[in-house]
């Protein structure tokens, strides 16, 4: 990081980076020699460098004066406003409601305790023992939500519903590209053709081999191909869980559990 002390002037004392003692390790040596701000010169007994030290100039590193000189404790603080996030002042990692693993950070509280769950008979959840595959739903550039399956030009570009599955999973199940398959979650079934791809790779999560499959949401229910009986009338959202996060209230459609079989 270049320091140009003769270019204009910055308050205070023409210092360019506040708390620049933090750019050095405890011994006073720059963390990154290419982007030196200041450093401790033992012979001179003071802090020197390109920038004006934001520090007591003769404080020896052995004295362990903290770089954040405006705080009594001398170290940085994390700041979070109260009441902005429903589930705590700081973000925390929780596993999805349906997850192939327990949260490695705190297995006893694997999922967010504040997610909103509905209680209808359709709001069932699957276990990783029965539903071992992670499913993600998404949209395609060729289609707009559920509208454009009524437009012949868009239907022509993506004529049939498909499910993207990894080559390795397809081999295990004996599925070939364009085979019709069923995707089953605890809540419903979706029928589409298999799109066998190398782009989705198996993952090792917490020591377990986990497959992820991808499912565009556009087809199903009614459209040109559906009305003519070419596509199944099973919308992708029959599979997804209706649980929402406590802050943005976004449903958990990017990570839920399914199993697949040949249709």
């Amino acid at each position: 990081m270049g320091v140009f002390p003769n270019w204009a002037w910055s308050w205070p004392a023409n210092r360019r980076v506040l708390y620049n003692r933090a750019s050095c390790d405890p011994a006073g040596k720059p963390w990154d020699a290419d982007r030196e701000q200041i450093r401790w010169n033992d012979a001179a007994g003071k802090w020197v460098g390109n920038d004006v030290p934001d520090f007591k100039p003769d404080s020896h590193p052995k004295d362990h004066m903290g770089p954040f000189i405006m705080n009594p404790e001398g170290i940085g603080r994390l700041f979070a406003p109260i009441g902005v996030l429903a589930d705590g002042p700081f973000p925390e990692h929780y596993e999805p409601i349906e997850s192939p693993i327990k949260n490695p950070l705190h297995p006893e509280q694997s999922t967010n305790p504040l997610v909103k769950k509905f209680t209808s008979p359709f709001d069932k959840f699957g276990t990783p023992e029965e539903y071992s595959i992670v499913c993600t739903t998404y949209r395609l550039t060729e289609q707009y939500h559920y509208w454009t399956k009524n437009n012949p030009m868009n239907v022509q570009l993506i004529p049939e519903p498909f499910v993207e599955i990894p080559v390795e999973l397809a081999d295990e199940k004996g599925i070939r590209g364009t085979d019709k398959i069923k995707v089953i979650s605890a809540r419903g079934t979706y029928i589409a053709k298999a799109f066998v791809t190398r782009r989705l790779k198996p993952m090792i999560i917490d020591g377990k081999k986990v497959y992820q499959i991808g499912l565009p949401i556009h087809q199903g229910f009614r459209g040109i191909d559906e009305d003519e009986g070419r596509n199944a009338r099973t919308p992708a959202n029959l599979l997804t869980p209706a649980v929402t996060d406590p802050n943005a209230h976004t449903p958990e459609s990017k990570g839920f559990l399914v199993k697949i079989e040949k249709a």
Partner: protein
Amino acid sequence: MSQASTEIVRISGHAGAVAGAGLNREYQVCKLVDTTTCIGCKACEVACLEWNGYTFSETSFHNSYQTMPETAWNYWNLIKFNEHEREDGSMMLLMRKDQCMHCEAPRMASSIFRRRIASVVAIALQAVRSIFQNSARRRARFSNAPFAMIAYRSGLNRPALRPARRAACISARRPT
């Protein structure tokens, strides 16, 4: 825009004046394609169809994002999707635009092809349509088609040829 309103540049195998030539010269457009910004939305495929007056044709899924395996006589602009492995082992999709490259100066209309096929009409900014008058001449190959975008297949005396191909053959496949 329909085909009728586009400009005819040249007709091969035609001794006299070119009918309709120069009628529509006030506009001149060129097409620049930046493949690095392609996200594979295929809007250009649809735009090409609508510009040239072609409508919906039935397609089917074939284990790809690609609309169909090859360009067709009524489908001149096709984005080809290739799964590509990066050096670090991760995957990406490469999108390549396959389209008719014959704008104002089709090579096919000016060389050996002209002697074998009765008539080739070059339409500005669009593809070359070949109109055959004699079935024996259909044996000709489009050996000099640039970019292999427009190709003619041998053995076309066989009755299996689809009528559409008889009228105009545009395919990304190289002549065999």
